[in-house]
């Protein structure tokens, strides 16, 4: 067991009113889990993910990573952001090295690791380019490389494909699955938040469905579809329909 989410609730306060966003969430994440968290908009998916990586504190409950309470700067947990969160004043390579530098890794080693992951996501030749000069899909590739470079055990992604166009995001998903299939590449488990059910069925081997606010775990499904998956497969559509029926 990698991560345990135990009794997590989150309450917001606005204008003196308390709003319950997440209500007693419990589940565990194991090695080789590729979890997609889906749910209607405003159900607290992103908040849950931020609590899992330690960027936000839950109001009640706790998140344990390898038996310890999670801290935001745990290098074994990495995050990919919806709008890439690249530092505009650093080049592609400098953006990736930044995470390594914070870990106190030596300059030479930083260069090697960064180079390796730039290659892995197919960005060779763009090392010295600034983010503004890249297309959306390439920016998110940098986001992936940066997250993988710290060689995390758990990779968390917050709607990583939703600000990309359909074609670009499909390419990126396939590349991601290829990296995921490779055994000697990090991470051991992935948690991804999405509102796109088809995307979830295509990528995940486990889907967690959250209810409308306050978010509760409505279902925790194992997706037993062989890979590579085919979108036109009737079996694929049965899974998509099943997830839809659970959301609505």
């Amino acid at each position, binding site marked *: 067991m990698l991560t345990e989410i135990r009794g997590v609730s989150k309450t917001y306060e606005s204008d003196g009113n308390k709003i319950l966003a997440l209500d007693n969430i419990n589940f565990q994440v194991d090695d080789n889990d590729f979890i997609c968290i889906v749910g209607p908009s405003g159900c607290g998916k992103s908040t849950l993910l*931020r609590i899992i*990586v*330690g*960027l936000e504190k839950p109001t009640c409950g706790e998140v344990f990573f390898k038996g310890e309470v999670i801290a*935001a*700067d745990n*290098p074994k*947990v*990495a*995050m990919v*952001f*919806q*709008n*890439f*969160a*690249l*530092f*505009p*004043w*650093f080049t592609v390579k400098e953006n990736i090295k*930044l*995470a390594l*530098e*914070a*870990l106190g890794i030596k300059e030479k080693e930083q260069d090697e690791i960064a180079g390796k992951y730039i290659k892995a996501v197919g960005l060779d030749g763009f090392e010295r380019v*600034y*983010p*503004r*000069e890249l297309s959306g899909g390439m*920016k998110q590739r940098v986001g992936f490389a940066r997250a993988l470079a*710290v060689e995390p055990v758990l990779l968390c992604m917050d709607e990583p494909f939703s600000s990309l166009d359909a074609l670009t995001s499909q390419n990126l998903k396939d590349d991601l699955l290829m990296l995921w299939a490779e055994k000697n590449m990090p991470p051991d488990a992935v948690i991804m938040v999405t509102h796109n059910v088809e995307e979830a069925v295509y990528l995940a081997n486990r889907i967690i469905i959250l209810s409308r606010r306050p978010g509760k775990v409505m279902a925790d499904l194992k997706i037993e579809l062989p890979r590579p998956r085919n979108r036109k497969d009737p079996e694929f559509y049965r899974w998509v329909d099943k997830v839809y029926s659970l959301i609505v």
Partner: protein
Amino acid sequence: MKKGHFILAVVFFLIAVTFAFYFFDYIDFPDLSLIPSYAAASFLRMSLAYFFALCFALSYGYVAATNKRARSFMLPFLDILQSIPILGFFPAAVLFFISHIHGRPGVEMAAIFLIFTSMAWNLAFGVYESLTNIPKEIVEAANSFGLRGWQRLEKLTIPACVPKMVYNSIISWSAGWFFLVASEIISAGSESYKLPGIGSFLIESTYSGKIALMLAGLSALIIIILLLELFIWKPMQSWADRFSYDYRGDKKPGDFIFNTRIIKRSFHFIFKAFSRVMVSLYIIFHKNKIFEAAAKYSGYLTLAAAIGYILYLLLGSVAKVFLDLPPGAYSIPLAIAYSFLRLGAAYIICILWTIPVAVYIARNKKASSYLMPIMEVTASIPAIALFPAIVVIFMRYGNLELASILLVLLGMQWYMLFNLISGVKSISNDLENVALSYGIKGKLYWKKVILPAMFPSFVTGSITAWGGGWNTLIVAEYITFNGNVYHLFGIGYLLDRATFESPDPGMVILSVLSMSLTIIILNKLIWQPLYRKALTKYKLEV
């Protein structure tokens, strides 16, 4: 027409004119050779003030952005400082500094202090806004890598300030030029407080009747400002582009006529060095806990001491003033009324010409392509530098009233014009098309489309224009020419007279306070309600 080309053309023209003057013996060489040293003195004053303003802004903005408790009083304080007519305080500052440090160094410090106050507040707001507007995701990314301490400072905090600081530095410098020239001109009114500089050069050559020499000095000032624009600010803006979050990639069309790579490289080098210095300072402070504690408390202590001292001086003198009103005190309300009428006259002329011109420029692409560079270059000349020229023209016809209204107009009009142009440009194509397809034109079009669309920028333009106007007034009501003092009755005259002619600190304090009070009341009663209305009713949704 590229602005860069136009700037170069103007620079060459001005140099040519100066040489022509020299060639035809309108100017003597010894006089002309004074210009470089005078210009250097002015530039040094500006640079020193900018350096202090930058240091102040970085620390003030950083503390305000990171310390919640400090923010609650630091922001309102900054807001008040920003709305005060700075030039009114120059006489007070001169009296304050020379009572502590005698002679020229005291006046020198007063001038640098004045320029500092015209630069610092806007920069401090820039730091504060940059630090509070870092996108949430970037902050989260930094948190998730565990960026903290000096690494966070170097990788996130300092770079995040760059774009706004560059933009605000340009504004600060153009305000700074105005106050530099103003302080030199004002102090030139009194022989003992004279400051050598391009401003005093202008006014002295005018007083001694050397008009060609004055024009040469004016050319020198304009050339300095234009060259700074061409070789510092433009390349710096394009260098700073990489620090902005808007990374959608649509680059602004370049306005360069040179290959600016070397300049940009050196900016980067300077920036890295600066950033290193800040980081080392940070490390030194944090390694030694004593330093940290000292820094923490010494900050509060010096602040408390400074505020206490100023309050002591202020309250002491105010109490004295009110117990024993200076003889001129009763003329203050009337003086303010006179000055107000002068500003009002200039404001009306300003509205009358800027509205039609703004609409014409904004709606006519061809006209704007060659008029905008001309307007921008003209606007970059600090209005006050034209003061001596105006004096010469109007003294000949003996009408000081017209001269001062014209000068105030010069101090007002550009704020108005540029704000209005951007207001008209904010009318979207969709709205234009709607108007076109429903046959809304002529008078109806002006009444229902253009004027409402301009309203918000009209209000912001008016607020800044009146601010500029009050500042210009201090210079415009008190003129020494050919050894004679000419004056117009008004608050600026009372201030200048109480500083330089017959020093009277009580009168200076009373005048400054009543002027500030008038401005604050005007803001509260007229501009703020209009501004609120502009924001709620007339804002064009983007």
